[in-house]
């Protein structure tokens, strides 16, 4: 399998045109294989949840908390779903033609790309100004959680540490998405110089052949990676044990029990909620 | 490379083909003397390299590569250099010959596609005793053409056309030979000569 597709420029020099579309099939395959593997594992292997007793105990401590705990503001949810819609349009318009389903995809693709870019800019501002910006990022402090999560996933009984507002998997996914989506968006906007849009006057000679080659490579690689990421994301969103998160993204709130069951109230402090009790249970 | 991609290339049959071909490759086969590798296919519609061409009333045995054009075969394997190659791209008409009486660009005809067809080149127009064809005689009478590199093509196009329309107007004849380029741009004189050729043919 070739990873790259080469062409020839007017000076008969080889130019990188894009990644090999074989990689799309590879990514699709990898995504689906992961999904199958994970699902099989979940079915076949025991999965460790926080014990009900533990949660019951916490319920007692945090009984002042409201029944519905706001997890995503309305605007944050709008962002998510707009972004999701844009992402689906982008991926479908990008890869269906490669898969042999031919339609006029280019306008849809770049317009969806602009929607995505716009939504992300909105999200950046919103998250910086209104949300707990750092709550979504991953850092060294997450190592214990990572260790615990892995062990739990392997069916081991592990006490603490529990996630803050966003579970670690969520946050890792976000980080990967940020890297990949920003790559796709930045390269995509550059690539709009190569086609006719109202945004730029078309100029395929804005960069050297090599720069364009890398741009196309990154865009393609990001797109292909997104195929896998989106498959994983959708898969987890639809899994029964994660359904409470998905519901949160739909409704904006989660139950107090879900909050206590899955999160460390210390790491996800609720604004306006009751202060932390004096003693840890 | 092409040969690597050939799914049905059979080396042994290829070797047989070359041996067969070698028997007839004459020293006149200049241009394509070293024969390229290519399989001897067995599928329906496959092509034998050794073929017989009917040129100027003669049956000529000749070994022809698959990608060879008629102009090349005529010029380099049959020694008929009266047919000129001016562009090799159907854009000048210097290579025009008659195939079953129809003027065609021999640079853009695969030799293998005219097996069994009647080919006439400029060398085949005059009678055996050297008497010029009326269209040739007309060129002599009118001093048509200058450098004359395009002449064989013009003459063949005219001869072919006159078979379907022996009494053309000057304008009709201009359209008939419009697939022939003359860079001396001597069209006016050429057309006069060709019109005279039509007249001589009618008289003959």
């Amino acid at each position: 399998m070739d990873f790259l597709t080469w062409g020839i420029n007017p000076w008969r020099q080889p130019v990188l045109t894009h990644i090999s579309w074989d990689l799309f099939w590879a990514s699709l395959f990898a995504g689906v294989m992961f999904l199958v593997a994970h699902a099989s594992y979940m079915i076949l292997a025991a999965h460790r949840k926080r014990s009900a007793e533990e949660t019951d105990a916490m319920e007692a401590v945090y009984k002042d908390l409201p029944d519905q705990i706001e997890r995503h503001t309305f605007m944050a949810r709008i962002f998510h779903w707009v972004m999701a819609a844009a992402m689906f349009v982008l991926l479908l318009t990008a890869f269906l033609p490669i898969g042999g389903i031919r339609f006029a995809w280019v306008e849809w693709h770049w317009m969806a790309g602009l929607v995505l870019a716009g939504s992300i800019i909105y999200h950046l501002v919103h998250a910086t100004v209104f949300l707990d910006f750092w709550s979504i990022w991953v850092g060294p402090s997450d190592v214990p959680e990572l260790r615990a999560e892995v062990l739990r996933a392997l069916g081991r009984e592990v006490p603490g540490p529990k996630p803050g507002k966003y579970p670690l998997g969520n946050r890792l996914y976000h980080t990967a998405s940020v890297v990949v989506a920003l790559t796709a968006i930045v390269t995509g906007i550059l690539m709009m110089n190569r086609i006719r849009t109202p945004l730029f006057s078309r100029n395929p000679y804005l960069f050297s052949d090599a720069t364009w080659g890398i741009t196309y490579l990154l865009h393609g690689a990001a797109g292909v990676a997104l195929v896998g990421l989106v498959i994983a994301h959708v898969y987890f969103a639809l899994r029964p044990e994660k359904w409470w998160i998905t519901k949160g993204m739909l409704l904006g709130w989660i139950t107090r029990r879900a909050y206590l069951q899955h999160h460390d109230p210390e790491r996800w402090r609720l604004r306006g909620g009751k202060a932390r009790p004096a003693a840890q249970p | 490379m092409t040969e690597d991609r050939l799914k049905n290339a059979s080396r042994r049959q290829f070797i047989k083909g070359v041996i067969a071909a070698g028997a007839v490759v004459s020293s006149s086969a200049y241009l394509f003397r070293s024969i390229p590798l290519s399989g001897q296919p067995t599928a329906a519609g496959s092509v034998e390299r050794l073929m017989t061409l009917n040129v100027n009333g003669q049956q000529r045995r000749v070994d022809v590569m698959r990608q060879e054009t008629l102009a090349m075969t005529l010029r380099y394997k049959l020694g008929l250099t009266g047919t000129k190659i001016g562009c090799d791209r159907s854009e000048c008409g210097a290579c025009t010959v008659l195939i079953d009486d129809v003027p065609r660009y021999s640079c853009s005809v695969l030799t293998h596609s005219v097996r069994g067809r009647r080919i006439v080149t400029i060398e085949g127009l005059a009678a055996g005793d050297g008497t010029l064809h009326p269209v040739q005689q007309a060129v002599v009478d009118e001093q048509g053409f200058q450098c004359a590199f395009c002449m064989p093509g013009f003459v063949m196009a005219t001869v072919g056309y006159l078979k379907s329309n022996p009494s053309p107007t000057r304008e009709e004849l201009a359209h008939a030979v419009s697939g022939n380029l003359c860079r001396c741009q001597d069209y006016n004189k050429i057309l006069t000569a060709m019109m005279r050729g039509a007249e001589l043919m009618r008289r003959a």
Partner: protein
Amino acid sequence: MAVIRDVMPAFELFQPATVDETLGLLERYGADAWIMAGGLDSFDWLKDRIKRPAVVVDLSQMMDLRGVRDVGGGLEIGALTTLTDLVRHPAVQQRFGLLAQAAELVASPQIRHQGTIGGNVSQDTRCWYYRSGWSCYRAGGNICYADSPTAVNREHAILGASRCVAVSPSDTAPALIALGAEFVLRSRGGERVVAAEDYFVGPDINITQMTVRRPDELLTTIRVPDRFAGAQFYFEKIRDRQVWDFPLVNVASAMTLSGETIQEIRLAVGAVAARPLRLTAVELAVAGKTRNEQTAAMAGELAVDGAVPLRHNSYKILLMQNLVKRAIRGGPMQGEGG
């Protein structure tokens, strides 16, 4: 990489005698097989050594797709019928003069003696950037050299461009669209029939192909219905040189009149987009109208609605507008004034 031209690379050659043999070869070799009919487009690609098919399927020995059959007032044209045979066929001349006119304006006499109707409608674009063998969109790359700030694109598209701005070079295609023709495509799997205008595909949908023909398919027959037999026809082709040249713009129309009222019309233009365009909006707008200068002017304006000129081809908008006007009017502006 060293580049060489004008000596064709080796290929395997098949000369099937029947459609079935051909379809078998196409099924067997798929996209590796290159179909050669008249060869006039093919030889350029092969001699330029840009396209390097492993297998060439030469249709020169196939006799069953040659000739025009008169069927119930309409025509069945074998795809391998030469343009000359088409022009000279009495039924074409008498009832479908539009097609004869278009075919007669193709290239040069020798090319018409050899070029086939199937090849003429299926030929590749002549964009000189694409034909230079560079990796443009149409060649599977990701750039259009013909639409850049410095590109020379006098002959390129004003309509329907999407990344690629190449145009359809066919003269017979607009005529066949105007006549409401249907194209029969056959493969081992069976036969499908597409309307003439649907045989062609734009770069928005398929940027590397000019037609919807699949590699395993063969265009076998073009059916021309009797609907416009003997109707009012108009064909005009504008080109730089009066021989060999491809159209700058061409127009074809078939019209039925009742008195001076346009009853029904089909209208198509070529060389303004990657596919020959049927001007449905114009057809609808002029149907039922009186055929006069006013209708012609309206049609001309409507025809170029949405046209986007490139750096060097704004004249094509004027040319297309005027040719559509002429098609409605039935000819150039007459008489004094202007």
